[in-house]
């Protein structure tokens, strides 16, 4: 009798529970790849005071950036170790932002949303990434720029990110509204609500 194993789920200590290791970079999208004109591209942070901090592409890539090497974990069970990115830390982007709200809704070109606690975006834990593996970020992987929050399941790392809107409560984003976990910590296997 043949026994189905599926992708091999390893005991590799770098892998959160239920994850398997992949060398490829699977693509998962909840919609078509948006076409974005770089002339119009912007990144913004909108606060409860009605203030919007905006960066054009040229302003954004002129900000200090970092090389980032991190493991990423998709809720569909693949993990990829030691991925290399370049991006701007959210600490840099939030430096001038004043807010009393504890939560963030990330919005993307194409309409995707995902919710995050502000605390988990700061202190060197999250970036807006625009290079992957030394090259500009492919559109299918979220280029020109995506959110990168590697300590949470990868659906939180919104592709084609456009802006962050501060929110007083942890209102759900797209997948969170459809049964996925509000938080999404892979080490605690927070897959579903």
């Amino acid at each position, binding site marked *: *009798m*043949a*026994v*189905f*194993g*599926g*992708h091999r*789920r390893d005991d590799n200590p770098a892998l959160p529970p*239920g994850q398997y290791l992949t060398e*490829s970079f699977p693509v998962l999208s909840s919609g078509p790849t948006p076409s974005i004109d770089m002339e119009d591209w912007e990144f913004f942070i909108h606060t409860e005071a009605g203030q919007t901090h905006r960066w054009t592409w040229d302003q954004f890539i002129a900000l200090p950036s970092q090389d980032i090497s991190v493991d990423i974990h998709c809720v569909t069970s693949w993990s990829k170790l030691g991925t290399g990115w370049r991006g701007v830390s959210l600490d840099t982007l939030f430096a001038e932002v004043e807010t009393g709200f504890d939560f963030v809704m990330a919005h993307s070109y194409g309409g995707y949303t995902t919710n995050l606690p502000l605390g988990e975006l700061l202190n060197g834990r999250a970036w807006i990434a625009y290079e992957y593996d030394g090259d500009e970020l492919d559109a299918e992987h979220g280029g020109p720029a995506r959110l990168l929050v590697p300590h949470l399941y990868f659906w939180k790392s919104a592709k084609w990110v456009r802006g962050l809107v501060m929110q007083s409560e942890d209102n759900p984003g797209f997948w969170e509204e459809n049964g996925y976990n509000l938080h999404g910590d892979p080490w605690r296997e927070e897959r579903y609500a």
Partner: protein
Amino acid sequence: MTSRAIGWRTGSLERAHPLTASARSITFTVSSWPGNDAGQHVDVRLTAPDGYQAVRSYSIASTGAGEEIELAIDRLPDGEVSPFLVDDLELGDTVELRGPLGGWFVWRPEQTQPVQLIAGGSGVVPLIAMTRAHASAGSSVPMQLLYSLRTPDDAFFRDELSQPSATARTTWHYTRAVPSGWSRSAGRLTAEDLKRETLPPEHVPLTYICGRTGFVETVSRALISLGHVPDNIRTERFGGT
């Protein structure tokens, strides 16, 4: 033919034979299978010993009544499910099946519109079901198939499609390598090819296109550019790029 009580049923592998170097026909016995229309699919669910599950959709190559259903699976090199179904599953092994599913990408013998079928690779599976239903119903509706393949060795069901008694004529197209003595060179299916090899818009055919997502997109766009109306085009994208 579709009854609503569709849960997971058990299918036991009854017969299997290779179709190409990478593909296999697998026929399951499914008790109380209600029969199926041509073009419908099943969802196949596999469960690992630790409870992990994977579900994939597969078109049904067989049609009509009876407790047997034939699937035809192409192995994707890095795939999770298809290599298991092509290489590992043994006679008598069981899988879970949900179906028959779908009512839109379906051809029924009482339809009267001329039919053009267009397949890319394994996308021929639901379309061979349509040619089989056409033959067994003795339908007089014109039906023809355009089958696009990378190389001559990649054909599923070539003997059956080439039989003189086939009621649907098959036109072959090759994108990478052609058989020796073939009059055309290998290349992607273009709007020109489609114009030459398929029923023209004036005949108002109902066209069924099936294959990888990129293939279906290219062909349906080309047909619309040739003057076919979108509502006369039905598509089944298998995924991939």
